[in-house]
């Protein structure tokens, strides 16, 4: 079972990402409504992937990517940024910081699923 952490401050968006991922065989999801909760989830269980929004209060997506990619224990967990267009520079920074992929919001469920498969395989 692959475990995916979904970080987004919109409950609606989280619900739709969860629904999209759970349609795939062999995946389960956990959710975090903000950066703080995301950081708290990290040591609680093994994670295979993190899907995160960028624009969130307190701790944003870029900071999560930075933290994960600099942490000796977590740096191997791949991250996918799911964010709306309009913040290209922020997305670029996220990829530079070590995120594996970017999926534009609103997303096509198929696009998100195939991106996840690709990222997890590599």
């Amino acid at each position, binding site marked *: 079972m692959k475990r995916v952490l979904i970080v987004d401050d919109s409950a609606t968006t989280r619900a*739709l990402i969860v629904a999209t991922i759970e349609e795939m065989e062999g995946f389960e999801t956990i959710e975090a409504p903000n950066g703080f909760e995301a950081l708290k989830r990290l040591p609680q269980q093994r994670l295979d992937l993190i899907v995160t929004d960028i624009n969130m209060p307190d701790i944003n997506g870029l900071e999560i990517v930075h933290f994960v990619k600099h942490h000796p224990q977590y740096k191997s967990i791949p991250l996918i940024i799911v964010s709306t267009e309009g913040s290209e520079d922020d997305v670029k920074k996220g990829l530079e910081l070590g995120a594996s992929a970017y999926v534009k919001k609103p997303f096509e469920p198929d696009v998100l699923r195939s991106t996840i498969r690709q990222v997890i395989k590599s």
Partner: protein
Amino acid sequence: MAERRKDDTLREFLAESEELLETLHQNLRVIEQSPDPSSVAPETLNAMFRSAHTVKGMSGVMGFAAVSDLSHSLEDVMDRVRMGKLAMSRSLLDALGDAVDMLGRLIASSSSGQPPADAEVVLQRLREAMTVQPSAVLMERPLGIDQEILKVLTEYEDHRLQENVKAKNYLYEIRAHFRFDDFDKALSKLTTKVQSAGEVITTLPSSGMSSKDGIGFTLLVGSKCDREGLAQLLADEVVELVAIGGQEFALSKTLAPQENEAVSARSLSQTIRVDIARLDGLLNMLGELVLSKAVIAQIAKDLMQVGGCLGPAMELHKAAQSLEHRVSGLQEGLIEIRMIPVAQLFDRSIRAIKKIARDLDKEIQVITSGEETKLDKSMVESIADPLLHLIRNALDHGIESKDDRRRSGKHEVGTIHLSAAQKGNTVVITVADDGAGINLAKVYQTALAKKLAVPDKEYSQKEIINFLFQPGFSTAETVTEMSGRGVGLDVVARHLAKLNGLVEVETELGRGTRFILTLPITLVIIKALIVRVGFQIYAIPISAVSESVMADHRQVVTVGRRHVIQLRDHTLALLRLNELFNVASSDIPQDRLYIIVVGLAEKRLGLVVDAIEGQQEIVIKSVGAMLQGIPGIAGATELGNRKTILVLDVGALIEEVVGQKMSIPLAA
């Protein structure tokens, strides 16, 4: 996606949109109230951007194109404003206000599957705002900031950093280390403290400093405070304070973070959202507990009467008392959770006032007070429409045209005062205007013409006002004719009655009118007057009771086919509950009558009962199918002695008696 999941997601979407719209409105109001819209706090602008951004994201994934398009435009405008590329102005504020209103309408129509409203005008205004050329932004980056931080700054954070440099603020890095299990609380506390002296530009969790059971954070801060001032502010915190461009020094307190956690800290992540239906369920359960508590208290009382205040009986009594104490604590806590400040209601009203005033070409200033007064969420929802009705009346018929106001020596700008205050178990909301007041002579004339008033009879001021609340009192032409109130006030009164509330009016010709709404704080658990009629016991919601009086039966006279009594300066219609519910009255000689005066606006009704048994908190439950639809019954409740009793629906009783729809026993 499974159907159920879809429904759940839609519900989630609606709840979330409602919150985000509220945030947008609140922040618009903050900007509106600031003396200079172009110098609003960056957090306010950023909060608006974030809300629009989130609505865009979630409506996009839901496939609501109209919502997504409008929130996208809103986001674009707010992005420019927060990045300092577009100045906030009154006209832009108006456009944003209309856009947010339209967004609310689009969300409602999209989620209910209706065709979206035409948002083109609103969109066009936003586009026009965007045609202003963004001013060139000069990039200035101070030396000495940790490269790792710069790599992670979002565009907006970068902009905030530059604004701080431009404002010649001191820049600091504050490094802190917290225990892992409650770092969010500790960090929020630190952030709040720092924000009192400056701006937290970014918060970077730094894994380099993290040990196995802790986590480090670096805050980039801009402040007018010099290093010494900031150090003093942070004297209780275990942090490292680095002035950027200067040398670092650590605060030397040796307090361990573990000992530092007692101070309360509010964190956004500490809040959860709960469906109000779940709270209803919990309250219902609590209602059962309240009943069990009453049963136990009753048993204890009975035991003490039999066996005296000794031994187990006394112990049980004490235990029952302590149970009572805790249950009421629990009850208060649960009700408190449902409470929201009326500020939300006022915000909505102010938006409506602005819009109506614009349509009527009247200039209005709104004064609010007591916005922090709290009311049950479902009560706030139920009261929104009647309140709007009163406001519309005040603007339409109360406040005069600019010319008229000038002529009568008033300020051209009319004033509407919305206020709220808690009084015991009730909340009083008033809508006051400084308009023309109600012309009572004309109201009387109209009442005569409509045969609501009897010629040659003298009416008190209150009785004349009472006509305003009669169904069918006002029509369009009477309204214009008397330039007064009356449009659908009967509807308002009926609505209030349903909520066990009251509406009263005070008016002075030429000076203005004040509507006073009295509402119970919650509808879930209410205080009730327990009355006896024959061998039957009934509960009457206390918020609907204005007084109880004892009268001699010889005071009762028959007018038309109705029993009435003269109570001070007005005539009170009586309703004998024993006849209404067809129960045998007690054998006690009826030379004295107990009359419970229930009032709905100026319409009052005297309920004749045999005895008043006391007051009690009750939880209203709906009655079974057998009793449903019986006029005058709101529901049932249980008393401590496990007896189920009926709760009277005061609003319906008055409505039925006044409207004479019910076949109530009238005088022969």
